[in-house]
């Protein structure tokens, strides 16, 4: 069974003659531990799709099902709880709290959910170590590079052990090298740590880290393609491991 499923997902902004269809009957599925990229020109609806999957916005029509649970049946409080426990979010501008240390930032979803502070800090520390920031636990965001801040954000997204991580242009504010590190880390989130990752990006280089790409245009899905396995030519052209 798919972890994420959308059925005829539609979002229309405005009414009457000024109505704009941002998403038009989108049907996508994401399996557990799968890394999926959503691509398309700006204004194609890719961020809207991500926000609807994450329950940050409500559809005009159609539905989103996360781990067997239809989001439409949930009141705001239930939706908030589902987001906190099943979904981790990573944003373009990191969205870390400036006055908190890396550990405090990464622990936030747990402390908000009522987990005792001591336990929350232990779990946050573990995730920060896994993303390679074991030596920056007490640093505040302004003492970290962009790539490091995004890694704190990824640790924060994973700290509640969600099954799904949603990333909106996670490398949009990073240089090439940090972008590669963050994309490689997201790949690890899926491949090593078994979380499904859905990432919106406009950057082909970053999208290529994913297992599958969903192409959107003008709110419609134009194609959906697996990137694995590689073609025979590529395998022949490049030396093996």
């Amino acid at each position, binding site marked *: 069974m798919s972890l994420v499923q959308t059925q005829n997902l539609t979002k229309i902004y405005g009414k009457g003659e000024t109505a704009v269809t941002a998403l038009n009957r989108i049907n996508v599925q994401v399996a557990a531990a799968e890394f999926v990229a959503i691509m398309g*020109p700006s204004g194609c609806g890719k961020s809207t799709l991500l926000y609807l999957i994450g329950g940050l916005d409500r559809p005009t029509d159609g539905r989103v099902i996360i781990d067997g649970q239809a989001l439409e049946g949930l009141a705001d409080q239930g939706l908030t709880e589902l987001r906190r426990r099943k979904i981790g979010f990573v944003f373009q501008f990191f969205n870390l709290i400036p006055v908190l240390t890396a550990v405090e930032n990464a622990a936030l979803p747990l402390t908000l959910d009522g987990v005792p502070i001591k336990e929350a800090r232990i779990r946050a520390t573990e995730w920060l170590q896994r993303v390679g920031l074991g030596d920056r636990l007490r640093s505040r965001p302004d003492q970290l590079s962009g790539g490091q801040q995004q890694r704190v954000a990824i640790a924060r997204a994973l700290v509640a052990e969600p099954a799904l991580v949603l990333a909106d242009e996670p490398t949009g504010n990073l240089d090439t090298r940090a972008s590669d590190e963050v994309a*490689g880390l997201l*790949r690890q989130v899926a491949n090593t740590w078994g979380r499904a990752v859905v990432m919106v990006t406009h950057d*082909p*280089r970053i*999208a*290529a*880290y*994913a297992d599958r*790409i969903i*192409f959107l245009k003008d709110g419609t899905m*134009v*194609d959906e*393609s697996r*990137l*694995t396995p*590689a*073609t025979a*030519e*590529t*395998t022949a052209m*490049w*030396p*093996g*491991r």
Partner: protein
Amino acid sequence: MSVRYAILGLLAQKPRHGYELRSAFHAVVGGEETWNVKPAQVYATLSRLAEAGWVAEEGVEQGSGPEKRIYDITPQGRQALEQWFYSGVAPEHQRDEFFVKLMIALVTGDVQPRRVIQTQRVFLYRELHAVTVLRQSYNLRTQLAQVLMIDKAIMHLEADLRWLDMVEGRLEEIQRQPLPEPDIRPRGRPRKVEV
């Protein structure tokens, strides 16, 4: 061409014999798998370089096996090498099969150009995914040659993908233009024009 100068450069580093040159070349480019040079090519290149006066036989190494001739670079060789270093290299100009495919698709008019473009896009993304995964498997400290080569491949694929986006974005504009037709010239002697 580049193998010749690579050999010259490796001899500028220190005198070597043919077998050693071949191994040194492979080490520099990141392995035999990336760029294999056959022993015969190394020896043929060495004798051509010797004829040109760019390298000279320095001596013979006597070992347990057959004797090995050791080569060194000459002053003329060093000059030629320096000239090579400080001159530009024209990018490899490839006839692009996809470009031809797209133009023919537009000419025949019975296929969907957008589908042709999307098929190519997915193909390129699969290539890009494969090299990206491979790049991650490399050790940045010990496999720098491979990493640099693969980065070049990644950047070329990125450029091709960007170009596809641009072509797709301008497809309607292209389709509105008259398709290129050759100027057909009448064969044989031009007809006399009646005045």
